[in-house]
């Protein structure tokens, strides 16, 4: 792995817990996620014994799409979420292409450009997740104020190829202090480290380095987002995918491609010099989390196709791993997906394949423990599956992928842990970084392929096609948050049925018809809780999934200044 030097971490510490709390803990709403999620747990003698993951927002997209032109689906599905907008556009577009057979003749350049935009989305999402959505679960920003900048700079220079000066870190402290003193809401509201917390292990110097990169990452993510817009026309809500290809003719010029390369190179540099070294630094202190938060089954749709209609040609491979068995990766079978609703706010107890999917809402109550979520419970061959970077990385690793294996091995050896450590919250967070670095390393090759095509006179980016009266198709996307699929049935040239099975539904849904827990519910069982009033341990595991609960509303509430607190009853 470029940009980091080996450094042995401190000995493993056990999460201290002096409070053998027994009783319920509710975290509602979880902050630093998309949308609205409530996690209720039962704690027995300081450890989680039971879990209910409840999504509070109803998404009725399937209902609103019926009877519309299939080409319009992407514009609606993009708006269902506030962050990963492009992935829905791509999934809807692929679903229609698959239905009408255009996926067999998609221009090479269209495929490359879609891959480049998706690669940029990976870089952007994963950097923002690590620093701005997840870091505060591990990093005590306020403790960084106590750090010795000279010591911290020396430490930073020992971990990364970039040169960090003490005065730069001192400047970060000054800025940070002004913020803490001003009591501004925003990033430090609800932070569980305020006033100190036993479950935070980093020393002030490490906290300062991570905080400095948190600030730098804010600037950097703007550029990563802009890279998507070079081909995507705009960001948010890129508008360049169409059924049959892409529309960004103006982005085929030397200048535009150079602009993309500059933004990409700057982003990649930050990944190599900051993200990965920081990830290893944090992980080396929190090795006890290599034994917490694991699940059993993993599903990857893969992503970045070489041949559009061949799911086996994807750079990140597709695959299914059951019971942590890395020796037997199975191929993914689209017919084996069913969605259960016995514990969801829908009528009945059906278990249906997405093509036959129904969306018939029936809310019970907020307190209900039997039906407790707006999410359905997707299952693969009846089992609950984890999707996302960890599923991607495990599948690639188990299949002996030449780009993934060395990076995974270098991370494991740096931390001095075996492959079994991947099945954990720490493994999940590490996998996101591993995936980022591998994708970043290979994107330059895709840009070269695009340039070669253009300079040899191949500038095709879209094909003509006709809408059939009747067809059905599916679009599989390996999004930054995991396996995403859109399923479409077309009748009389209109949408007859449209179902979305999104990554967070796999990861954060409720129990299924067989009462099996979802991935996050399974992952939380056994989690130690040091302080039931500030259950950062729950946030660590939930945030490690980068939850995206389909953004519903975004109004400015001028009536209240109340920060929602979770309740301990």
């Amino acid at each position, binding site marked *: 792995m470029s940009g980091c030097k080996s450094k042995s971490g401190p000995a493993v510490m056990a999460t201290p817990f002096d409070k053998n709390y027994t009783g319920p803990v509710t975290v509602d*709403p979880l902050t630093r996620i998309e949308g609205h999620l409530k996690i209720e747990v039962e704690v027995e003698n300081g450890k989680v014994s039971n879990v209910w993951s409840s999504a509070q927002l109803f998404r009725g997209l399937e209902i609103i799409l019926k009877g519309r032109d299939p080409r319009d689906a992407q514009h609606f599905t993009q708006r*269902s979420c506030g962050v990963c907008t492009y992935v829905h556009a791509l999934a809807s577009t692929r679903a229609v292409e698959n239905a009408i057979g255009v996926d067999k003749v998609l221009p090479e350049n269209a495929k490359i450009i879609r891959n480049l935009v998706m690669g940029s989305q990976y870089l952007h999402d994963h950097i923002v997740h690590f620093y701005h*959505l997840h870091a505060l679960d591990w990093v005590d920003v306020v403790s960084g104020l106590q750090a010795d900048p000279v010591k911290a700079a020396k430490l930073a220079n020992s971990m990364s190829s970039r040169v960090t000066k003490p005065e730069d870190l001192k400047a970060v402290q000054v800025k940070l202090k002004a913020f803490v003193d001003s009591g501004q809401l925003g990033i430090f509201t609800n932070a569980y480290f305020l006033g100190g917390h036993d479950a935070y292990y980093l020393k002030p110097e490490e906290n300062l380095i991570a905080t400095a990169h948190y600030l730098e990452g804010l600037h950097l993510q703007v550029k990563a987002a802009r890279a998507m817009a070079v081909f995507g026309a705009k*960001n948010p809500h890129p508008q360049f995918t169409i059924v049959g290809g892409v529309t960004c003719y103006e982005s085929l010029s030397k200048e535009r491609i150079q602009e993309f390369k500059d933004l990409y190179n700057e982003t990649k540099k930050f990944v190599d010099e900051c993200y990965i070294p920081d990830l290893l630094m944090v992980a080396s202190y929190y090795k006890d989390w290599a034994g917490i938060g694991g699940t059993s089954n993993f599903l990857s749709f893969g992503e970045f196709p070489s041949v559009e209609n061949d799911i086996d040609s994807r750079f990140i491979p597709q695959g299914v791993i059951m019971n942590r068995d890395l020796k037997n990766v199975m191929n993914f079978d689209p017919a084996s997906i069913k969605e259960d609703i016995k514990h969801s706010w829908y009528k009945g107890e059906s278990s249906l394949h997405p093509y036959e999917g129904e969306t018939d809402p029936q809310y019970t109550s907020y307190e209900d423990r039997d039906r407790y979520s707006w999410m359905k419970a997707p299952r693969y061959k009846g089992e609950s599956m984890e999707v996302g970077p960890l599923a991607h990385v495990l599948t690639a690793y188990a299949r002996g992928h030449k780009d993934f294996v060395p990076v995974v091995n270098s991370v494991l050896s740096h931390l001095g842990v075996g492959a079994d450590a991947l099945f954990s919250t720490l493994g999940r967070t590490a996998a996101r970084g591993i995936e980022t670095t591998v994708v970043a390393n290979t994107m330059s090759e895709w840009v070269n392929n695009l340039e070669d095509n253009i300079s040899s006179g191949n500038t095709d980016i879209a094909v003509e096609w006709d809408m059939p009266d009747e067809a059905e198709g599916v679009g599989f996307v390996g999004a930054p948050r995991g396996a995403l699929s859109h399923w479409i049935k077309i009748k009389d040239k209109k949408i007859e049925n449209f179902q979305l099975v999104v990554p967070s539904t796999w990861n954060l849904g409720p129990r299924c018809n067989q009462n099996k827990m979802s991935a996050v519910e399974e992952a939380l069982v056994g989690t130690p809780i040091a302080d039931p009033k500030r259950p950062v341990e729950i946030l660590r595991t939930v945030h490690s999934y980068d939850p995206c609960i389909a953004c519903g*509303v975004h109004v*400015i509430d001028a009536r209240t200044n109340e920060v929602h607190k979770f309740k301990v009853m």
Partner: protein
Amino acid sequence: MSESKKILVLGVGNILFTDEGIGVKVVTDLQKEFSFSPNVTLMDGGTLGTVLMGPIMECDMLIVVDAVLGDGEPGSVYRLTGEDLRRSLAFKDSMHQTDLLDTLVLCDLCDSRPDCVVVGVEPFDYETMCEHVSDTVKAQFPIMKERVLEEVIAAGGSYKTA
């Protein structure tokens, strides 16, 4: 007021939830009906938080158009500035814990927080999934547009009918 002061008119919200999308719709209308001086940019921000930091940090004056929960009747039009905004919180349904207000704090951390004014309207319904706004809010479109145009002029921009 220099001519070169960069103004961003940002419509935010989710256009799939009835009045939630009012901000985006007003801005889309303005784009169709008027042409603005070169220092004015109109943008559909959707429901995004941190991804909007780029365009926000590039402007000197940010005019946000959004649904606002105040104490007024549905359709009430509001103007929020500095202190009102700091007191507001849309935490419950915030994006990434960085809804628009948090996004402004993050811009502040990056040393480029523009001045900001919000032109808002009290929604009648922001929960039903429907791509059209309610009649109550629809009736306020003309006044919303007028208010936004006033803010553009006050900030040093100009416009003419397209």
